[in-house]
């Protein structure tokens, strides 16, 4: 019995959360030409990666990415390998540090929102109606006129009936009157805050400005118009997912009807919400309800176009160049879609989150299908899980304002904005030696004030070396007594497989130059170069000379093309020369990058040597 008690005590002691370790990962991201040619560092907490980026205007700010997103961007598209040093922290220290970085992320994001609100107010008083900051969000999903037939859709009829049941007769009209009154009564002290004190410890509340209140209420009024007058979905903003895989069975249609009813009830509650932004959500929700109606009626899934406006698109000419890749992306997406559709319809109840994911991936698939079949441009980014399209703020909805008050408000806002910028620069000004992506990681670790021996030791390692403002110096320093693993870049993985499957000489001769390399295609991100020099150190000077000559030759063309391409070719040649110089002395920066690749799967972001 005594032995048993003793063993229990030992077991409890060992498994105590106070003592269990959690791995904090420091990432060094290898150099490549472009945005981080001196390398980059990041901190990884389980699924999230925090790092600091240098922005226009000379400031450095925290960024938070999911590991998959971060890996995809840096390791795959930018083709950089990672070196990961894991440091064991106690569970509480790990949690506190993660919370600290999360807090900094939210605080800084909120500071950005303050600037956005300032800009919105300025634009509003200057009546720049076409500016996106003044747009009515969600209204763009609908036609700008009622249906010609005058017939109500089934969803519209159901909605109106629900309004009657819940709120009584004439709800819409009464609500419109209430909102119109509210809009006229928005306080005219146009920007309240005169004192501004930004802090990296306090979350700044953003004033709900006159501009935002007017825009939000206008959006709500417009939504009520859309409901009462029966505006339908704009045909450009939805599509039918074609093919047998998107056909609906009777059971699935029945499930969609239940889901639609849930959303209708939710919408009736939403229009009576105290949320300032309910108008945008109401548009999105009603659009979703109408698209469900189309699915139910047709027996085929119909989805809203979920792409954000103005996103990156691959031009039609380039679609042909990347045809194989896009087809592979499509095949992968279809396989995922089939799985997700099955999961959606076998769940007890359809949840909005799950439906939105199916919609987003269907957009991804449909976009490539359309582009490949009809040789059209393919939008490759910007899918949103809640479809929102915008319209410019209607001039007719702009309130009557006293001219002198507006002039005074603009002056006040511009002064305020100036103070904001000064404070931001004071807090976050980038400095290549004292305030960069490396220094900020360790400054924040230090400032977190967490009492932990491991963190204290790391801090002293970093501060004892004068050159740790350089990303790889800092990493070398902290990785001295820690376990380090390498996560290979995209090209390294591809080459490894090629060397395993094919004759070494054949692979080398094919892959050492950009003209015959199978996986690499020239793209705008890379300066002109001929030879890859990252693989073999001893051939670097020779191949570097080749790259230098290539870039120099290209610069002649660049000079000739200068009047026609605004110096694009010449800049590429110039950067090509710069990137070739280190190669002459055995150093490599440039590795080539990729514009479009297959999606990552979760396992690719796991910390493994195979990864």
């Amino acid at each position, binding site marked *: 019995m005594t032995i048993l008690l003793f063993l229990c005590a030992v077991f409890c002691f060992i498994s105590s959360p106070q003592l269990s370790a959690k791995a904090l990962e420091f990432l060094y991201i290898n150099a490549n030409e472009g945005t*981080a040619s001196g390398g980059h560092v990041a901190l990884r907490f389980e699924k999230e990666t925090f790092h600091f980026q240098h922005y226009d205007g000379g400031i450095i700010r925290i960024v938070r990415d999911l590991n998959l997103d*971060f890996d995809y961007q840096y390791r795959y598209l930018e083709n950089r390998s990672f070196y990961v040093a894991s440091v064991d922290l106690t569970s509480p220290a790990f949690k506190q540090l993660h919370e600290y970085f999360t807090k900094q992320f939210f605080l800084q994001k909120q500071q950005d929102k303050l600037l956005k609100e300032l800009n919105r107010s300025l634009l509003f008083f200057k009546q720049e109606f076409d500016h996106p900051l003044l747009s009515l969000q969600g209204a763009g999903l609908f036609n700008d006129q009622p249906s010609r037939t005058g017939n109500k859709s089934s969803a519209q009829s159901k909605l109106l009936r629900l309004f009657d049941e819940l709120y009584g007769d004439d709800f819409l009209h009464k609500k419109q009157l209430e909102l119109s009154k509210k809009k006229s009564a928005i306080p005219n002290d146009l920007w309240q805050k005169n004192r501004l004190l930004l802090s990296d410890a306090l979350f700044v*509340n953003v004033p709900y400005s006159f501009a935002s209140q007017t825009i939000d209420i206008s959006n709500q009024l417009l939504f009520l118009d859309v409901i009462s007058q029966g505006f339908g979905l704009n045909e450009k903003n939805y599509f039918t997912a074609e093919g047998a895989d998107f056909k609906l069975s009777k059971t699935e249609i029945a499930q969609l009807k239940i889901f639609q009813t849930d959303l209708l009830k939710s919408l009736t509650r939403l229009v009576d919400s105290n949320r300032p932004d309910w108008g945008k959500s109401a548009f999105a929700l009603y659009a979703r309800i109408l698209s469900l109606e189309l699915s139910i009626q047709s027996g085929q899934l119909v989805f809203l176009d979920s792409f954000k406006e103005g996103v990156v698109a691959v031009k039609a000419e380039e679609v042909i160049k990347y045809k194989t890749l896009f087809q592979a992306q499509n095949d992968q997406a279809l396989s995922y879609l089939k799985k997700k559709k099955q999961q959606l319809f076998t769940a007890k109840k359809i949840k909005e989150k799950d439906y939105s994911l199916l919609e987003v991936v269907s957009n*991804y698939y449909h976009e490539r299908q359309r582009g490949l079949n009809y040789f059209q441009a393919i939008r490759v980014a910007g899918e949103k899980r809640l479809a929102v399209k915008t319209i410019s703020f209607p001039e007719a909805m702009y309130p009557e304002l006293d001219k002198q008050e507006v002039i005074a408000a603009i002056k006040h806002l511009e002064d305020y904005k100036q103070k904001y910028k000064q404070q931001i620069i004071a807090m976050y000004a980038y400095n290549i030696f004292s305030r960069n992506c490396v220094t900020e990681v360790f400054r924040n670790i230090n400032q977190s004030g967490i009492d932990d021996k491991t963190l204290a030791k790391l801090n002293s390692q970093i501060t004892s070396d004068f050159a740790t403002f350089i990303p790889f110096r800092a990493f070398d320093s902290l990785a001295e007594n820690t376990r380090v693993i390498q996560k290979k870049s995209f090209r390294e993985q591809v080459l490894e497989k090629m060397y395993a499957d094919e004759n070494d000489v054949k692979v080398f001769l094919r892959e050492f130059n950009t003209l015959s390399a199978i996986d690499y295609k020239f793209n705008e991100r890379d300066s002109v170069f001929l030879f890859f020099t990252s693989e073999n150190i001893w051939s670097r000077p020779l191949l570097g000379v080749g790259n230098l000559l290539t870039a120099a030759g290209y610069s002649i063309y660049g000079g000739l093309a200068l009047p026609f391409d605004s110096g694009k070719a010449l800049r590429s040649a110039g950067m090509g020369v710069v990137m070739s110089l280190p190669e002459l002395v055995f150093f490599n920066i440039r590795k080539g990058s990729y514009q479009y690749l297959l999606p990552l799967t979760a396992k690719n972001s796991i910390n493994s040597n195979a990864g």
Partner: protein
Amino acid sequence: MKMRSFLLAAIILPLTQACSFSTSSESSSASSGSTSDSVKSISSPSSSTSSEEDTKDYQVQVMNYTNVYFTSAEFDSATYNIGISELAEAAGIANWEDDADTLTAIGKGLKKDNITGSLYEAYKIRISSKNVTRMNLIQKGYESQD
């Protein structure tokens, strides 16, 4: 290794820039966040996660935001609501006030902040707009958090 890396730094630093430079076309102070939406595709993120993981991740976001907000700001319902709306929108939820996952996560966040008693009750009423179902969900989240 140290000498090599120092030499590399001496050569490279004048020619290059360390650290990542945001290529966002927005102004710097409007772009703190994650890799810009306009260049990020679903090709990298949650496409491969299960529904349960997706829900859990979302709830953690809401809980963390609530935690940060209530520990470092004076309560302002417009600011708080807009913050939650953004997280909900990113997860594909239009009406978060009716969403059980969101409300329970808010409850967890309030508990994590050690908000108790009449202050907790006041926040619960404000956030739920006195709707009993919503208050119950917030309470459920509150009680489930350690």
